[in-house]
């Protein structure tokens, strides 16, 4: 397969992770119109939970995911109760987006600095049994951590789809997304639906953090890098189009990998941000969405 095949493999593995790190951001934005700029911080926090479980107890990071989900879900509940729930009183969605952005920006400062005090500002990664290993298949190398990331991204993406499409909780979420006032008139407790959705969104960030700390590295101030990637993927998918997030992640991963092949690895972030700008100019509703945005 050679160089090009390896590039495609790399793009798919990285792209799946890009999709995974975006799910939580897309859920909060799509359902509640909360623009959570602390999403990267929550990814890092989830990564730290897995890191300390590994460092102290030797827990395999992929096995620590259930613990990370529970811890980060609770973090999400607190974040919603304390900071986000008052925003529902705001009359317009635009105000809700703006205020949630400011509030979560504050959360970045508080949580990042707390993590710096508690965990030291060091860059951490989990060097486990799979780190650096790869499998040769059809002439290309597949990194084992990348394959785990791909598998988890697909599992989580499909699970989220089923929860939203099939369960009654999912129907409540979609109803509240389309018309929250009408959802209340149907007897849905919209506040509780939002509370649980925020918990799920932050838990999704935590799962992404496990993959990041296993395949890459984390540091208390390193959330911004992942937030930027998640923004680009969310724009590609089309805001509110949750089912398109994993595919959009793959698109970004592949475009980036091919771009790096053409212009060199030092331009990796430039490639992503150029894609971001081009999408914003020409297709602000995203690649996968027909509907246009309206605020």
């Amino acid at each position, binding site marked *: 397969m050679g160089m090009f095949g390896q590039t495609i493999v790399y793009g798919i593995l990285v792209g799946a992770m890009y999709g995974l790190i975006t799910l939580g951001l897309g859920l909060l934005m799509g359902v509640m119109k909360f623009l959570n700029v602390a999403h990267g911080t929550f990814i890092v926090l989830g990564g730290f939970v897995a890191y300390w479980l590994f460092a102290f107890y030797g827990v395999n990071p992929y096995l620590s995911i259930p613990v990370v989900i529970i811890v980060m879900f609770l973090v999400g509940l607190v974040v919603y109760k304390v900071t986000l729930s008052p925003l529902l009183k705001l009359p317009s969605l635009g105000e809700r987006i703006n205020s949630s952005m400011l509030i979560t920006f504050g959360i970045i400062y508080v949580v990042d600095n707390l993590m710096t005090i508690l965990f030291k500002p060091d860059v951490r990664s989990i060097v486990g049994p799979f780190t650096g290993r790869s499998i040769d298949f059809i002439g290309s190398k597949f990194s084992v951590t990348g394959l785990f990331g791909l598998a988890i991204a697909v599992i989580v993406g499909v699970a989220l789809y089923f929860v939203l499409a099939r369960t009654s909780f999912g129907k409540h979420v979609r109803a509240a997304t389309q018309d929250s006032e009408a959802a209340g008139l149907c*007897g849905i407790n919209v506040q509780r639906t939002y509370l649980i959705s925020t918990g799920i969104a932050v838990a999704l960030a935590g799962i992404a953090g496990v993959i990041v700390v296993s395949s890459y590295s984390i540091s208390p101030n390193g959330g911004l890098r992942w937030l930027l990637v998640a923004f680009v993927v969310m724009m590609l998918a089309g805001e509110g189009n949750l089912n398109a997030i994993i595919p959009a992640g793959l698109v970004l991963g592949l475009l980036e990998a091919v771009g790096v092949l053409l212009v060199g690895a030092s331009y990796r972030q430039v490639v992503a941000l150029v894609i971001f700008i081009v999408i914003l100019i020409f297709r602000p509703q995203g690649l996968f969405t027909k509907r246009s945005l309206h605020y």
Partner: protein
Amino acid sequence: MLEVSNISAFYGDIQALWDISLTINEGEIITLIGSNGSGKSTIMKAIAGLMKPRGGNITFDGVSLGRLPSHGIVDMGISLVPEGRRLFPEMTVLENLDVGASAKRAREFKHSTMDFIFGLFPILMDRSRQVAGTLSGGEQQMLAIGRALMARPKLLLIDEMSLGLSPIVVDDILQAIRDVNGTMNVSIALVEQDVSAALSIADRGYVVHHGRIAAEGDAKALRCDSRIMEAYLGVYVEEQAE
């Protein structure tokens, strides 16, 4: 059954309702009539918990609705078909009905209620897999009423029922409302532009004017009272449309 006593309501600083009192008895159909912007919809919203009245009290079966959120009021047995239908446009007809049965009191009756609604509006069964946003106006209004009935209300509030619908469809829906009232023993409060149609199916009516109850009485009596019909519902318009 429902007792609204002396409520006032504001949109920001602008007062919309003054000292409104009304009663809805079990099994009754009442109608609120009045010109655009008179406050009929605001009364409906206050009962359904979409806006909180200042002062006064609303009780249902003796229980104060006071600070209940709108979903709590659905749990009590009051459902609102809101102005403009407010369906979930990207969900199918079936999903809209399904979501309508979210209240605890409604869940166990979901299938039987759905059968009843399909009997009431057979067209909804034909359209059941279709996305609500693609339905015609009349079908959307039927679905909106069906969705509200899925919550098994004891009292159904219907706001601006015939807005944008053809007269034939309006007749069908009015007939269905009469059926619901008769067979499900659901009390009904109707806000309707077509005053004579509304008074023809209602037991009693309230005339709302400038945010106050200007007159009330037996529907037949109101219909025959030319003084009221002319003063509050006649051709002259002295206020801006909503």
